[in-house]
């Protein structure tokens, strides 16, 4: 038996820990010796839900993610990696070194701190990013005394934080440099509908607004000076959340001499072009199709890499379950036909299904996927249909190409959004007329119950026994005048009994109109 392959995973976040789980699941013969190094002292947790913690909807203790199998994986927490020595194939931490055959970088990203007066050096009291468990904990603690919050940045995280803080009863303002909120995902029309919804939640939005300065007194924030076209104004604030995007954590890769752009450059095999022993996945990676900054992409990469490492030379299999590639990969293969005009022609498309953006905010429902907002191009093959209903806080747009849904924008239409997500990620056929995607079809289930007169004779009254209205009318004419008579004659009501009311209703109606029913045999007798 050959020596086991030593894999060192740098980063115990959502992607690093998921990769380790996928690898150990795929590595049935325990051919890999895995070391997982985490910078934070904490066990792996669900970072995506930090905004839900801020909103008070999710308990901090519920964020913990599955632990790796302790028998198969060595985990070191609070072990920041200092360097990767590629010559000796060693990863160095403050407490020791780890020899490797492969390194997987899953170092994630860090919150971008804007270059603003007042934010030099350590953040002043009351100003927080929202990236780590500690950030969330501190923001939640601050909400106990804070009254006015300002969120800088109206992207997905900024809006989730704003809605969460508003839910906690704070007065909230959001500052955003672009014309409309969530401009990476929403076009201006959709963004304005979202903005109106924010106003409905009591959140003030300052768009096309430049943040000039964080006002600090005695080391504590008191306000934000903002320039929105007129004279700069100062918004009072005792809590400021910075939601200005993230920066991939690439310092380790850069110092190891690997090619780095915004993130660590990797090829289709997720390896650095400079060193086939070093891989990068998740937020720190920059594949050719670009990093979406979404967890779905990182998890898809984790699964793909686990497959590549455990079954080398078999192309790019992907799922933890080896016999089947992941949905995301299969979909990415399918979507090869769909051009993405907003991207350079040479770049491969993002694995479809990994770019659904779903805002988590009570009272503001925004979902986008694929070709949407700024990513929407002028591709003549794309058929775009929209429903614009700003007064009701609703805006839905779908983009269809070759009979498939390739993009959608949904504001204030959560049920439609759920249907569209399912159709988009699976590439199921869309209606002949894409306009039918814009609203949920009415169902007859909601139709009002037919009155006895209007009910057709063929309508089934008693499902359990297949008894129609016609059968009951016939039985009634033959002398069955009570529900018990009808049951004896037709068995209606003798199953679950759910039709008893309808049968009684029919009998009442027949009793009332009976003489008028043209029925020669009975008519004479009744008229007497």
């Amino acid at each position, binding site marked *: 038996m050959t020596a086991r392959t030593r894999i060192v995973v740098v980063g115990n976040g959502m992607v690093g820990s998921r990769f380790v789980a996928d690898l150990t699941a795929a590595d049935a013969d325990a051919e890999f010796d895995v070391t997982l190094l985490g910078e934070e002292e904490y066990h792996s947790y669900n970072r995506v839900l930090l905004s839900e913690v801020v909103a008070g909807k999710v308990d901090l203790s519920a964020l913990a993610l599955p632990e790796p199998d302790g028998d198969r994986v060595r985990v070191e927490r609070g072990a920041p990696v200092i360097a990767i020595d590629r010559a000796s194939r060693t990863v160095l931490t403050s407490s020791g070194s780890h020899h490797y055959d492969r390194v997987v970088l899953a170092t994630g990203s860090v919150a971008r701190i804007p270059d603003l007066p007042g934010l030099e050096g350590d953040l002043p009291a009351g100003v927080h990013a929202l990236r780590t468990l500690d950030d969330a904990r501190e923001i939640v603690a601050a909400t106990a005394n804070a009254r006015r919050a300002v969120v800088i940045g109206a992207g997905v995280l900024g809006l989730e934080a704003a809605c969460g803080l508003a839910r906690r009863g704070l007065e909230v303002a959001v500052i955003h440099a672009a014309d409309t909120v969530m401009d990476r995902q929403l076009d201006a029309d959709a963004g304005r509908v979202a903005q109106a919804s924010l106003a409905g939640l009591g959140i003030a939005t300052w768009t096309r607004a430049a943040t000039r300065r964080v006002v600090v007194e005695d080391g504590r924030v008191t306000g934000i000076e903002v320039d929105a076209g007129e004279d700069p104004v100062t918004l009072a604030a005792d809590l400021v959340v910075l939601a200005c995007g993230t920066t991939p954590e690439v310092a380790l890769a850069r110092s190891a001499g690997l090619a780095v752009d915004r993130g660590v450059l990797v090829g289709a095999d997720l390896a650095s072009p400079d060193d086939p022993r070093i891989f990068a996945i998740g937020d720190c990676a920059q594949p050719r199709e670009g990093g979406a900054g979404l967890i779905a992409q990182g998890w898809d990469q984790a699964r793909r890499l686990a497959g590549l490492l455990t079954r080398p030379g078999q192309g790019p299999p992907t799922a933890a379950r080896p016999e089947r590639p992941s949905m995301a990969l299969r979909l990415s293969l399918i979507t090869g036909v769909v051009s993405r005009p907003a991207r350079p022609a040479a770049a491969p498309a993002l694995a479809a299904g990994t770019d659904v953006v779903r805002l988590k905010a009570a009272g503001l429902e925004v979902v986008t996927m694929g070709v949407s907002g700024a990513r929407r191009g002028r591709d003549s093959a794309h058929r775009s249909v929209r429903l614009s209903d700003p007064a009701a806080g609703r805006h839905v747009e779908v983009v269809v190409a070759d009979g498939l849904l390739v993009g959608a924008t949904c504001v204030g239409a959560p049920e439609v959004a759920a*249907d569209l997500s*399912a159709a988009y990620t699976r590439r199921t056929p869309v209606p002949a007329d894409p306009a039918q995607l814009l609203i949920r079809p009415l169902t007859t289930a909601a139709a009002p119950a037919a009155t006895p007169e209007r009910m057709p004779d063929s309508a089934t009254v008693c499902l359990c026994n297949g008894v129609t209205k016609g059968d009951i009318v016939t039985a009634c004419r033959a002398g069955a005048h009570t529900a018990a008579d009808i049951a004896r004659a037709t068995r209606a009501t003798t199953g679950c009994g759910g039709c008893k009311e309808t049968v009684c209703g029919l009998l009442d109606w027949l009793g009332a109109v009976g003489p008028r029913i043209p029925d020669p045999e009975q008519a004479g007798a009744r008229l007497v």
Partner: protein
Amino acid sequence: MGVGTQSHCPYCALQCAMTLTPPEAGTGPTPVTITPRQFPTNLGGLCQKGWTSAEVLTATDRITTPLLRGADGALHPAGWDEALTVIATRVRAIQAEHGPEAIAVFGGGGLTNEKAYALGKFARTVLRTPNIDYNGRFCMASAAAGANRSLGADRGLPFPLADLAGAGAVMLLGSNLAETMPPSVQHLADVRDRGGLVVVDPRRSTTAALTGADGESGVHLQPVPGTDLVVLLALTHVVLTEGLADQAYLADRTTGATEVQRSVAAWWPERAEGVCGVPAAQLRATARLLAAAAPVHGGPGAYILTGRGVEQSTQGTATVTAAINLALTLGLPGRVGSGYGAITGQGNGQGGREHGQKSDQLPGYRKIDDPAARAHVARVWGVDPPTIPGPGKPAVQLLTSLGTPGGPRALFVHGSNVLVSAPNADRVADRLRALDLLVVCDFVPSETALRADVVLPVTQWAEEEGTMTSLEGRVIRRRRALAPPGQARSELWIFAELARRLGSGVHFGTDPAAVFDELAAASGGGIADYAGLSHARLDADEADGGPGLFWPVPGPDHPGTPRLFLDDFPTPDGRARMIAVDHVGPSDDVRPDAPIYLVTGRVLQHYQSGAQTHRVPELERLSSEPFVELHPILGFRLGIADGDLVRLTSVRGSIQAPARWTDRIRPDTVFMPFHWSGAGSVNRITTDATDPISHMPEFKVCAVSVTPLIPAAAEPLAAQGVAS
């Protein structure tokens, strides 16, 4: 007891009570008249199948003599002696050439406890083959595997059905009981009044519609097929993250809660929505509805119930496990008025899985690889423990191996119609053709019987004595109201005769009461313990209007156990095990050349493969042919009008049936009932991929292409199950 014979319906596991009386002169063609009877499960109700069940007794093509396939290839009447001699001779020859494992046995969930027990004993002691399994593998295997693993015991409902009436919430996952066991709907009336019925189904089935047109009676969640597990993971996520869990219960009565909590942390509702298509807000509201009904929040109680819709999946055991995890998180199992349960399908689906026709089991729900269990059962059977074979192949693997090198060369089929009810049925047909000997016991010429080398005519429900164990674990009596026609005999007699002819010294009783006593002794000390029961005790309890007897009943003075788990769980540490599971998705998922999901199910008028119900004109009148339900939006897209003939194609084959437009189905999904053979037999294209733990095939979801069929290309539809 009043006039007439007190018995129960021959069909589903609800086992509606009925009285069979001789017909008044000239009142009808059936040999008995059926009157529904008050009983805790059916509350005096019967569906159309039950009302008309006597018509099968006099089916015009009823098999009344043994049939032997002649040199001309046709089946011809034969005497019992001749037929049994042929079987014994050929079995001996095959055994001599290929060994005992070359004889396989396939049982059914409709057999009485006595027959199921005797069948398992016959396979292990006379044939000495490990290769016995049954159609319950297509039915209850995932529920059984999940409940055994998590709760330590699998009794479909570990509480009386009537308990549902008191609940504040009842969640049904993948169960369409309003069509499959209609009288049971009465038990949901109260929870519907409270607005607490939750139905999870990709279709707005008759059951889903019970939640009310405006949701006034509950909630219908309509997930993408194959993603029910995601719904459960998200619900558990919400319960845990919103602080709604019963932490005291988790601490006192379970192990593994931390791992489960960590695993569901990755399934927040917005992520789940993207996979299962159920809006996040609806998932949250549903979790809160269930929690509000849970005892920990002062609610009246809540139930989580699973059915075949979620269990017949390659992740069926995981889905059942997730349902149990959710129930445990809410503190439901083992509490009066709350719980988890699986709704058993076949008439004796419960008893049938307890007494030894399962490949890995011995009577009393004992494990066949447990030395103590083998010793106990060997003592009852009067054989040496080492002569009892070990575990055999589960159903799909068993059927797939028939006639292959090293696989079985002969098959006995009892109470099952595998050509219609098994997945990827054309492959099953190929395997049956490859056999040297196929023996089928049936009372009508089912599709499978028509392929047999020897057909043996057996008794029907009204012609025999025995017991059934209902979906609640209640042991009930089936009683004889009339003599069987012609030469039809009970399987008990057939086993005894074959044992004798095959030279076995093992005793096979033919009196059902005596066989039951033996079963009771064999089950004694097992999980499904019938030791304290006898026909006489069951009769006396019923005559007294007694409360009924639910297993385990370990002794003659033991009152039975209507509610399991009240004090502890039958696991080594007495705690329920919470086991983290994750979603993988269907084995045969949609792709460009098969972009539509196919789900299968049932209609009210038919039972299983339809071998019985297709022979009842009143049922055939209302439901005579298979159909493909599809949404008008899909119909427009594909150019298929209501009533058009369509072709469904999966990687396994193609079938055809008329389209039926309905808005009760997702536009990405088509539905077909599976009760038919021939061109519209949906199990010809369902997948035989199986769950890794329960070996349950994935009937309920596969990927198909749907195309309109021009009339000239259409094959004639086989509406009837009978070959002409």
